[in-house]
């Protein structure tokens, strides 16, 4: 599906999204899903879940899910444009904001902003978890893999990559 107008709409969405996604890309996933799957139908539910998994398992920042969606909408150019759209505007902001931050380091308002945004981030990450679990865990084997990975990552210091590798191996063997 290659559609220039879809790609430009998507790029614009990413720029807006990058400014409200407090707490990083994991907070933005529900909105990405709403736009890309529910409203525009650019991706199937299955493809979205797959892309999320690939972006998580591959090395590099998790924001790369937008690179995959960009590729789907506009090939390699779309992929690079989507990557730039999600991070360039906010990177420029960061560049100029660094100095102001030093100046207001101990200002009560700054501390209130930090304390106030944190619980919203928590809620958004939980929303992403809810959404991804609902689509990824379609059978008992998948539920077991999710539970095992969650327990491993929460209770131990074992690198989650091992869980990804084991889960993929179970999948290749046709057990998921």
């Amino acid at each position: 599906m290659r559609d220039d107008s879809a790609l430009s709409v998507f790029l614009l969405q990413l720029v807006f999204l990058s400014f409200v996604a407090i707490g990083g890309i994991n907070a933005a996933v529900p909105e990405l899903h709403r736009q890309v799957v529910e409203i525009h139908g650019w991706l199937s539910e299955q493809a979205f879940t797959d892309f999320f998994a690939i972006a998580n398992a591959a090395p590099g920042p998790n924001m790369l899910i937008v690179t995959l969606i960009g590729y789907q909408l506009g090939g390699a150019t779309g992929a690079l444009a989507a990557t730039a759209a999600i991070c360039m505007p906010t990177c420029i902001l960061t560049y100029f904001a660094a100095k102001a931050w030093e100046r207001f380091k101990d200002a009560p308002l700054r501390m209130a902003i930090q304390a106030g945004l944190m619980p919203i981030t928590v809620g958004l990450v939980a929303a992403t978890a809810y959404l991804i679990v609902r689509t990824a865990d379609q059978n008992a084997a998948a539920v077991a893999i999710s539970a095992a990975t969650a327990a491993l990552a929460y209770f131990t210091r074992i690198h989650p990559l091992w869980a990804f590798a084991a889960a993929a191996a179970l999948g290749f063997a046709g057990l998921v």
Partner: protein
Amino acid sequence: MSESSAAAERSHIPSLGELFLGFLAIALTGFGGVLPWARIVLVDRRRWLSGEQFAHDLALAQFLPGPNIMNISILIGARFRGPLGAIVCALGLAGAPAVLMIVCGLLYSRYSDIAWLRGGLAGLGAAAAGLLISLAAKLIVPLLRERRVVSLVFALVAFGAVALARVPLYWAVVLLAPVSIAVFRWRAE
């Protein structure tokens, strides 16, 4: 004196090439999220900044909009080598993984309906979901343990709005963030 000797330990200012390679290393070793690796590479291995500085940069990167790790690359690149340093660090971090994603996208569009690959993806998806559960739990459990009721209420409202009511993220953040900030500002008085 102690400050200058601490500075002398890290007297070497990384070149543009070193910055690029440093962030490339972070990107390529950072499976399943890059932030923990960023700390290992920047603080422990290359000693470009102290643990305290890293925590400080991380707080700012999380506070500002956009992907956290990208913001960190900008902060560090700019500190050592100005605007060019910032660009080089960001490219080092995002460039190679983005190219890798393009390859994945190509493979996906050709082969995603092969049964054993579908199975692998289903397994990966379940693992990614599990990783997210643990991430959410790591954020929520401390709030529960310390009985931070106000924080929990705002987290619950944000969750309900976005996950259950499917409110657009823009509205959820624009409406909730000012209220939450005002409440915390008022409680601090």
